[in-house]
């Protein structure tokens, strides 16, 4: 590593997974690598030069050798490791063979340079992560006032919620929705007109004595059909239709003050009764 253009003023962290520099270290399990790029970076570091000056050809050969050895040892390589191997084999051929006519896409050199650049970028961020971690961190190296003072008077309640809470709530809602069994919904969400009518007629008949005044249709909905909106909607629709039928047959009277006002119901009274 060329010390003079090292932006982080520190030797790159030694990757504990790479162990010693001997070739056998390459036999380590690939489990330690997060992906082909991670593995390539580890191989590139062994060249001990600035990442932008590595020999991509040598790197490609090392990678291919690694993959070959892994396959000889019957280690299962994830697909992306093999895709990278195929691409590096192609790159190697482009680097070794004479350049084809210009219109055949990027030159081998350009591809190699792009790869080296990618590795340098990843390396830079890896080093940056290390540099961040070694800063004087709050709660480890720097400390806030241990006993913040306040003679506070509580005047209001503020509701606290973080963006993470908000996003989670949304995913939760949408997920719950996706998992709600449809069949269950369908069966449960419809109050049959017959049922509504039977219920309303029984209620009106039985309550006739006590039900002296108008009541909202809402108040007459079955108890367990009031909460969930879908069930409630269905119950209102069925009960309304049932109320219309009963009114036509002369059992109840209906009244509504205006559009969208509550619908009122009462048992039909004999003329002169009220």
């Amino acid at each position: 590593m060329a010390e003079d253009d090292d932006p982080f003023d520190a030797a790159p962290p030694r990757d504990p997974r790479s162990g010693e520099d001997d070739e056998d270290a390459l036999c380590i399990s690939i489990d330690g690598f997060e992906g082909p790029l991670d593995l390539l970076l580890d191989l590139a570091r062994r060249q001990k030069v600035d990442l932008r000056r590595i020999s991509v050809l040598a790197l490609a050969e090392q990678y291919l050798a690694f993959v070959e050895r892994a396959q000889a040892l019957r280690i299962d390589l994830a697909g992306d490791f093999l895709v990278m191997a195929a691409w590096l084999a192609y790159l190697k051929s482009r680097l070794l063979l004479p350049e084809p006519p210009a219109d055949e896409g990027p030159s081998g050199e350009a591809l190699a340079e792009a790869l080296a650049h990618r590795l340098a970028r990843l390396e830079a961020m890896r080093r940056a992560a290390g540099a961040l971690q070694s800063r004087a961190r709050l709660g480890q190296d720097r400390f806030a006032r241990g006993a913040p003072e306040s003679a506070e008077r509580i005047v209001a309640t503020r509701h606290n919620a973080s963006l993470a809470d908000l996003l989670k709530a949304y995913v939760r809602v949408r997920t719950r929705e996706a998992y709600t069994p449809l069949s269950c919904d369908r069966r449960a969400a419809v109050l049959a007109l017959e049922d509504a009518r039977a219920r309303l007629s029984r209620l009106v008949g039985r309550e006739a004595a006590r039900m002296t005044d108008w009541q909202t249709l809402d108040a007459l909905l079955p108890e367990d059909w009031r909460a969930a909106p879908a069930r409630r909607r269905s119950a209102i629709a069925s009960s309304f239709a049932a109320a219309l039928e009963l009114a036509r047959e002369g059992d109840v009277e209906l009244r509504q003050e205006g559009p969208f006002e509550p619908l009122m119901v009462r048992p039909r009274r004999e003329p002169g009764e009220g």
Partner: protein
Amino acid sequence: MAPDLFGPAPEIATQRMVEAILFASAAPLSEREIADRLPRGAAVGPAIQALTARYAGGGVVLERIGKSYAFRTAPDLGFLMRRDVVVERPLSRAAMETLAIIAYHQPVTRTEIEEVRGVGVSKGTLDLLLEIGWIRVGRRRETPGRPATFVTTPAFLDHFALEDVRDLPALAELRRAGLMDPTPPEGAAAPAERDDGLFGERDDPAPGEDDPSEEGA
């Protein structure tokens, strides 16, 4: 550690250390307790005296409390600390979900919120969000019944450090790469889960329920 710690005169070094320890401590500390944290042999007493003198007259003073010491606001500045504060309280799950739906689907009617949530939304929940100032009543929807809609406010953006509601990640983005864990919560499939209001109390829209949205717009 700090190799140059004893670069300055030892009494200055000790003073700095005592200052830091007292500052970071949640409770007053005795000379003994301070000494326990310092390199062996540090002279705590003189350091405390020097600090007391250095802070005297400033906005913060080093006070002796019994046998212990602590930094405190200068007594004449107490009025600065006696501010009116607000206690923070987490938002209920129901309110959080309602808010999230409004944020993502605005302008949205109450019925639409209920459709997305799969459970009723109590009036108290919407009232609370209106009261906090994170939502407001938007334009009425031009559909039968002309229901009121709800939208989020600038205060909402402010609180969640968002520049625009459009910046909220799409559901697909949240799910992909597990930005937010999408495993269904237990009881996810329970069809008629009740939204029991904010803190358990006030759970039912009052009969003759006056939707807060009716007044708005």
